[in-house]
């Protein structure tokens, strides 16, 4: 039993370029949103729209980051080379989300910002997620991986907590939790639940096909 999607493998010589292309494409929503907002083309409350656009894309990149492993386990698609870019995109979108809140929304009114973070649970949770992202972003390089060894793996398990914080922050920020918030909470839950299941699944899979499926690099 093998599940191999019919997507052609990318030649190795394009791997590096494809990662840089992902960064370039990944920032398009922010750039386009900023252009629309700065020229008065975002509807209604432009600052809020932009802030929410950035937050939503940050959550999407977090979900994408956590999807790399199950994609490899279940479908044999090895997109590990994009994981760092996706994680860093999530980080930069959170930075922009927070900067928009601080500068455009609150005009750097620090007493209000501090009070917001301390008193409003959904902002506290969002801020906690942001703080946890910082060490992950700082150690998202080969040197840190070599330097930290197995501790790097343990540190980067924070990504699970961060994604959960992001989804909860999103759901708590709206007046009524709707389908969109439930979909993100559901996706994060499935992705997190996969982690304890995957050793057993991969063991079973190896028994079935005689080798781990992720050797088939694509």
């Amino acid at each position, binding site marked *: 039993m093998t599940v191999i999607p019919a997507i052609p493998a990318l030649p190795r010589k394009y791997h590096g370029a494809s990662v840089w292309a992902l960064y370039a494409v990944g920032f398009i929503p922010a750039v386009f949103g900023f252009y629309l907002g700065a020229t008065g083309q975002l509807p209604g409350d432009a600052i*809020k729209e*932009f802030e929410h656009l950035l937050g939503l894309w940050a959550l999407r990149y977090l979900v994408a980051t956590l999807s790399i492993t199950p994609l490899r386990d279940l479908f044999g698609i090895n997109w590990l080379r994009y994981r760092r870019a996706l994680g860093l995109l999530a980080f930069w979108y959170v930075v922009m989300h927070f900067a928009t809140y601080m500068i455009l929304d609150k005009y750097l009114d620090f007493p209000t910002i501090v*009070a917001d973070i301390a008193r409003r649970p959904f902002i506290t949770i969002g801020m906690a997620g942001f703080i946890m992202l910082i060490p992950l972003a700082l150690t998202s390089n080969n040197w840190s991986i070599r330097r930290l060894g197995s501790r790097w793996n343990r540190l980067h398990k924070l990504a699970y907590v961060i994604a959960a914080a992001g989804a909860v922050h999103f759901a708590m920020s709206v007046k009524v939790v709707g389908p969109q918030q439930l979909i993100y909470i559901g996706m994060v839950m499935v992705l997190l639940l996969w982690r304890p299941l995957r050793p057993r699944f991969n063991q079973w899979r190896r028994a079935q096909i005689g080798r781990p499926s992720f050797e088939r690099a694509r």
Partner: protein
Amino acid sequence: MTHAMHTKTWLRTPYPRDLNFGVMATDANPLAAKETPMSAYRPPKIAAKEITPEKFFLNRRGFIAATAGGLLLAQRAQASAAALKANPSPFSPDEALTPEKDVTNYNNFYEFGTDKGDPAANSGSFKPTPWSIKVDGMVASPREFGIEELMAFPLEERIYRMRCVEAWSMVIPWIGFPLAKLLDKVEPLGSAKYVAFETVLRPDQMPGQAGFFQPLQWPYVEGLRLDEARHPLTILALGLYGKTLQNQNGAPVRLVVPWKYGFKGIKSIVKITLTDKQPPTTWNISAPTEYGFYANVNPAVDHPRWSQATENRIGEGGFFGGSRRKTLPFNGYGEEVASLYAGMDLKANF
């Protein structure tokens, strides 16, 4: 106040108008101040720095025409609205208007969906006519009012600030008449203390009321104390910007209470009931710790999840309009309405 007088004044102010409404109102209708039943009314003062630079609203048409998308939006916006004439009212403060495209495309009307653009996008199949409002409860003469009958009340244009509980605001030129005039016709009994309102329930025409996910309990209900309902600032609105209401704004008839958060302004009303008990209100049922019965605009009482101290004025041109402003107690209508709440703890009765 005679009808002949109304005819004369609105003839001199044809729609659509591109100029400042407030100035025209006073120029065109110098007698209005003497005629109004509440001559003590003074329009709330607006600081000069808070007034939107003229270019933002005078250029509205040019801006819309400049973009194909804007043009389409404008055309769609016209589709469901008919011209509506009204008498400029002395109750209108001289304040820069929020562009019509924002007033008609940035809405909270969960019956059509929870996103701001949903009401404009999903309300196309809603039928605002025929329509009638049933008025019953503790009244001497309960009855129904057809929409034509409502349109026959002497209509006034009221330019009001609208402060949403989500910390944004607009300035909207409503057309309507004081709710008190409708209540007079049904003769409330001495025992009546509150007024309850109900929105139409039509899952077949309102996608937010149908399907698997229901954000709120339907029908939407709201309520006011009788003295709030009878206050001269409280109106039933039938139109805005010189036209009948569009579906996304609560067609064909909605409540506007300018010193309260926007969610008190119940839309597409089918029933008004006079009662002696405080009526249930939809957002209070949904989250009692976040939305109270009174819901008076109050910068000193934060929403549990955000501050109400400031607000963002919609439609002032993107990121750098510097449009964040301080929220005023009672949305700036304190001089007119604060006395309604004398001796009340407004922090407890939020």
